[in-house]
C-alpha cells in the first residue's frame, strides 16, 4: 500500500487534529487555552469599559436635566411639607391655648367671656398696655376685666369699634385690691416700670410668707373677686415702716401673651371720684 505525498500530508494533519481534540477533551490543554485567551479577554474587557464610558458620556446631559428637575420637585415638596408642619405646630399651640382658656372658663362659670387676640403693644416703653382685636362692636366696654388661662391680666381702658386697649397689672399706674391667701390679708398689688409686681399697704402684723397666693379681693369694684394674680416671692418688713412690702411673681407671662379673655358680664364700679378727686390715669 502506497500513499501519495498529498494523501500522506492530509492523513498526518488529520491525525494531529484528532490528537489535539483528544488532548483537549481529556483536559490536558486547559493551561494552554487559558494562557492564549487571557490577552483576548483583557482586550475585550477594556473595549467594553470604554464603550460603557462613551455611552454614559453621551447620555449624561439628559440624566443631569432629569435629576435637576427631580431635585426641584423634591425641594418644592420638602418646602410644602415644612410649611405644613409649621402650620400644624401653630394650630396645635393655639388649640392647647384655647383648651387652657376653656378650662379657665369652666372653672369660673359665673363669668361670661369674650376671647380676643393680642395684636400689639403700646409704642411707649414706659407703659405696659396691650391692644386686642375686639372692640365695642363685640360688646366690650371700658373697665371690663381681662384674664388669661393663668390668671389676671388687667382691664380695658379704651375701646374703638374693632379694638381695645388694656392696661396690664404690671403698669406703673396700676393698683389692684387683692387678698393674700391663706391668711386673708388685704393689700394693694402695684406694678412698676420694670414690670415687677409688689404688694403695698400690708399691715405690719399681717403674717404673709413666700408661697402665699395673691387673688383679687373684689374691693374697689374694678375686678371680680378670686382671680389669681400671683404668688408671694419675698417679704420685706422694716420696723420703722408703716407697712410691709412683698415681691410678687405674676402667674401670667406678659411677654408671651397671645390670647386673652374679657369678662363681659362684669360691671366695674368707678370709685375714683370718691378716692382720688384730682388726677387720673393716662
Amino acid at each position, binding site marked *: 500500500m502506497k500513499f501519495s505525498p498529498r494523501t500522506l500530508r492530509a492523513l498526518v494533519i488529520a491525525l494531529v487534529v484528532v490528537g489535539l481534540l483528544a488532548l483537549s477533551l481529556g483536559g490536558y490543554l486547559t493551561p494552554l487555552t487559558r494562557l492564549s485567551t487571557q490577552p483576548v479577554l483583557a482586550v475585550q474587557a477594556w473595549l467594553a469599559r470604554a464603550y460603557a464610558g462613551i455611552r454614559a458620556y453621551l447620555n449624561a446631559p439628559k440624566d443631569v436635566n432629569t435629576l435637576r428637575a427631580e431635585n426641584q420637585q423634591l425641594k418644592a415638596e420638602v418646602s410644602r411639607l415644612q410649611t405644613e408642619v409649621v402650620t400644624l405646630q401653630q394650630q396645635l399651640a393655639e388649640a392647647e391655648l384655647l383648651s387652657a382658656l376653656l378650662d379657665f372658663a369652666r372653672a369660673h362659670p359665673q363669668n361670661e367671656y369674650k376671647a380676643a387676640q393680642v395684636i*400689639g403693644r403700646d409704642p411707649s*416703653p*414706659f*407703659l405696659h*398696655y396691650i391692644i386686642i382685636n375686639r372692640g365695642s362692636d363685640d360688646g366690650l366696654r371700658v373697665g371690663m376685666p381681662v384674664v388669661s388661662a393663668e390668671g389676671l391680666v388687667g382691664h380695658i381702658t379704651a375701646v374703638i369699634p374693632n379694638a381695645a*386697649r388694656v*392696661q396690664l397689672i404690671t403698669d406703673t399706674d396700676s393698683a389692684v385690691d387683692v387678698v393674700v391667701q391663706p391668711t386673708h390679708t388685704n393689700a394693694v398689688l402695684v406694678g412698676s416700670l420694670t414690670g415687677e409686681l409688689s404688694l403695698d399697704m400690708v399691715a405690719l402684723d399681717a403674717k404673709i410668707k413666700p408661697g402665699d397666693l395673691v387673688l383679687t379681693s373684689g374691693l374697689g369694684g374694678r375686678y371680680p373677686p378670686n382671680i389669681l394674680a400671683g404668688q408671694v416671692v419675698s417679704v420685706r418688713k422694716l420696723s420703722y415702716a408703716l407697712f410691709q412690702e412683698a415681691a410678687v411673681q405674676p402667674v401670667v407671662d406678659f411677654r408671651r401673651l397671645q390670647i386673652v379673655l374679657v369678662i363681659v358680664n362684669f360691671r366695674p364700679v368707678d370709685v375714683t371720684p370718691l378716692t382720688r378727686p384730682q*388726677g387720673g390715669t*393716662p
Partner: protein
Amino acid sequence: MASLSGLVVLALATALQSAVFSRIHLLQGAADVVLLTLAAWYMHEDAPASWVWAVLAGLMVGTLSALPWWLFVAGYGVVGGFAMLLRRKLWQPSFFAFFTVVLLGTLATQGLSWGYLRFVVRSPLPLGEALNRVVFPSLLLNLLFALPVYSLMDEWAAWFFPNREVER
C-alpha cells in the same frame, strides 16, 4: 405720589412698631421705628420736608398709645425741626447727621413721655431708673436699627426720585 407713599410707609412703620418692635426689649427700652423712619425721610435731600410728616406720625402713634397724642406730635416735631435745621445748615446731609437727629430725637421723645408721666400723671418713675431702664436702652436700640432703616429709606427714595438721582 411720593407723598402718598410716604403716608403708607409711616402707617406701615406705626403698625410694625406696635406689633413687632414694642415686643423687642433691651431691659425695658424699645426701638422707635417711626422716629427712625421719620428722621431718615427728613434727612434725605430729595424728599420734601414738611411739618405735616411729624404731625401725621404723632397722630398715628398717639392713636395706639395710652399717652396723649400731642406728646408724640411734639416729640416727632422736635425730630423734624432738628432735621430740617441740619438740612439747611449742612451742604450735604450725611449719615452722621442722621445719627445726631436720631440721638436728639430719642432723648426728646422719651424725655417728654417721662416728664408727662412723672409730673402730670404722677406715676412712680424715678429719673435714674427711667434713664437706666428705658431711655438709654431705647437709644442704643434706635442707633442699632438706624443703619438698616436709613438704607431702606434711601433705596425707597431713590426709587421715587430717579430723575433727581440722575441730575446729581
